[in-house]
């Protein structure tokens, strides 16, 4: 496999991989080999994700779920990269990577369960190789390295992909993860979603460098900057990195330059730290609209189809939400069941204490 992007696009020179320009015009020479059907499937996934994300926001406002971290604006970065994976590849996401996880097989109803504070939402189906949302910023890439390493030890051909933010790059754990990956040449792809903010902290506060991808140079792995709002570019670069890793070529880092259009979470008020004008600028670069124009130009998009997609998507969302909401309320015993395979005597006694306390509360 010849390298198209990884060893060619130099982060130190400020180069960035882009296949669709902001108007959706495609660099045909660089276009990855995706069928029309796949292109439409990807578009459908983006539209659905946007619906889900907006729903998450409004559910939180209605008090039906807890804190929600919107990914609006990052759909191309997540869906493009996730689509480059095989089913047996491991995904190790952060709290903002719902769109990627859904592509990899995470059921939508589980997503809602998680947001409703139900641990069932974190129980992946048996055939989905995806860890639960990582909340401790920067802690998860090491897990991906371990999973990738296991595959290498067993001579399996799966790879691991991990997602983390621009803020996470400041954490020592991310450094250790990338260094281990390179020393042991494990098949791991590091996707840094540089959405320009870590809560209120702008990207420049995390690193004095021009790019985050240039960190990779310090580990002896390829690092490449990709336009994170360009689904085709993200897909192509991730695909190359994953296949290279699969073939024994070792890890790589991808910095997907994008923008968090929404607040950090539903608890955050971004007007305290950024200008509306900046947000408006980035809104013009909406990854979905860019991809839509590309499809339209190729005759793959119509207004009617869009309408159908939205209806179908909304129905999917409502069905998943219903499934999540109709689950029975939590049972007190649940909280003792998963600390160890066999509960310790302490846990058994504590579970008994709780049962008695609840009985007495009910008795009153």
């Amino acid at each position, binding site marked *: 496999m010849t390298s198209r992007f990884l060893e060619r696009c130099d982060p130190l020179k400020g180069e960035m991989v882009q296949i669709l320009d902001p108007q959706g015009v495609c660099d045909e020479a660089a276009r990855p080999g995706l069928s029309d059907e796949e292109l439409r499937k990807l578009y459908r996934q983006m539209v659905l994700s946007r619906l889900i994300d907006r729903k998450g926001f409004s559910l939180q406002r209605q008090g039906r779920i*807890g804190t929600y971290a919107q990914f609006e604006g990052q759909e191309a970065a997540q869906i493009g990269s996730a689509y480059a994976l095989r089913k047996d590849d491991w995904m190790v996401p952060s*709290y903002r990577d719902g769109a990627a996880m859904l592509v990899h097989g995470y059921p939508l109803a589980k997503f809602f369960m998680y947001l409703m*504070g139900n641990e069932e939402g974190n129980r992946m189906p048996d055939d989905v190789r995806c860890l639960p949302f990582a909340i401790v910023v920067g802690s998860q890439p090491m897990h991906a390295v371990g999973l990738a390493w296991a595959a290498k030890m067993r001579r399996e051909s799966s790879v691991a992909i991990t997602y983390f933010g621009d803020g996470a790059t400041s*954490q020592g754990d991310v450094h250790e993860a990338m260094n281990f990956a390179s020393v042991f040449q494990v098949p791991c792809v590091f996707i840094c979603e540089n959405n320009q903010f870590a809560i*209120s902290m702008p990207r420049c506060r995390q690193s004095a460098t021009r790019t985050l991808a240039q960190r990779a140079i310090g580990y002896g792995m390829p690092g490449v900057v990709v336009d994170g709002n360009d689904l085709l570019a993200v897909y192509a670069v991730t695909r190359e990195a994953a296949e290279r890793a699969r073939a024994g070529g070792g890890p790589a880092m991808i910095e997907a330059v994008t923008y968090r259009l929404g607040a950090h979470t539903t608890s955050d008020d971004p007007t305290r*730290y950024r200008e509306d004008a900046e947000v408006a600028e980035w809104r013009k670069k909406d990854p979905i609209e860019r991809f839509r124009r590309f499809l339209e130009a190729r005759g793959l998009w119509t207004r009617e189809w869009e309408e159908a997609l939205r209806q179908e998507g909304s129905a999917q969302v409502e069905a998943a939400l219903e499934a999540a909401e109709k689950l029975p309320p939590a049972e007190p015993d*649940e909280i003792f069941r998963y*600390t160890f395979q066999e509960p310790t005597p302490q*846990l058994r006694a504590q579970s008994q204490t709780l049962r008695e306390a609840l009985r007495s509360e009910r008795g009153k």
Partner: protein
Amino acid sequence: MEKRNIVAALNHALFLEMARDERVVVLGEDVGRDGGVFRVTDGLQQKFGPERVIDTPLAESGIIGTAFGLAVAGLRPVVEIQFSGFLPPAFDELISHVGRIRWRSRGRFTCPVVIRMPSGGGIRAPEHHSESPEALLAHIPGIKVVMPSTPYDAKGLLLSAIRDPDPVVMLEPTRCYRAIVEEVPDDDYTEPIGKARVFRQGEQVTIISWGAMVHEALSAAEQLKTEGVSAEVIDLRSFVPFDRETVLESVEKTGRAVIVHEAVRTGGFGAEVSAQINEHALTALEAPVMRVTGFDTVMPLFRSEHFYLPNASRIRNAVQEVLRS
């Protein structure tokens, strides 16, 4: 006097101390322009500038490790860790350096840093946002550990902490941040580090607690009163130093003790309190010292949080149990 909640009281203390002592610098994630995710540092950067109210990269070990250097150089850094669940990446700095430098250098270097953070559950927060690490911290030599439960104490303890010649970790009960409002004087006052507060006098049983659980204990005591039981409620306020006198005096009077904390039960700070009572007031005890605590599990997601957290009803049951023996 102005009524303030805990957030406002802390904010007020920071304003006072930064104005009074130019060695004080505030650093952490989102503490500057954003004013902290709970707004404890709100307005400080506008007033004191970005050189004294510093937004740092997202790296807890780096924040505390560089604050160590700042403190050794003679500054008075006040670090905000966003939630106590994000302190563990910095544990090595606390254990290996912050708590040790006075000792290692025989007093030549000291580390008068304050590390403050929201702690505890009950706010329907995501995973890792509801931890109670006081027992871990109290076991680290060379670090003082305090936890106010009211606005008045929050201000008084924070001012003491910043002026303390040694490192102080201050845990702030997230759940009470805005829920508890009281009159807080405008002037400069301090509350001593290492003194418990007898929150409510009583005769038959002593309830020892800290953080948000103090308020559960108070409400249990209120209920118990209607049932004819007189409970004394102690807010420990400080783990290191531990105010043994206040605890023993009360237990010697009442003969019965119930300790309440949110943290994991095994190895929680309640064990230390119980052990101390046993060591020094065994003969006064008329019943076993009971602990009402969180469980040996992680804090559940918010749907099940109420199962995990001790509440007035569980405290009341425990009191009734110790009264039976």
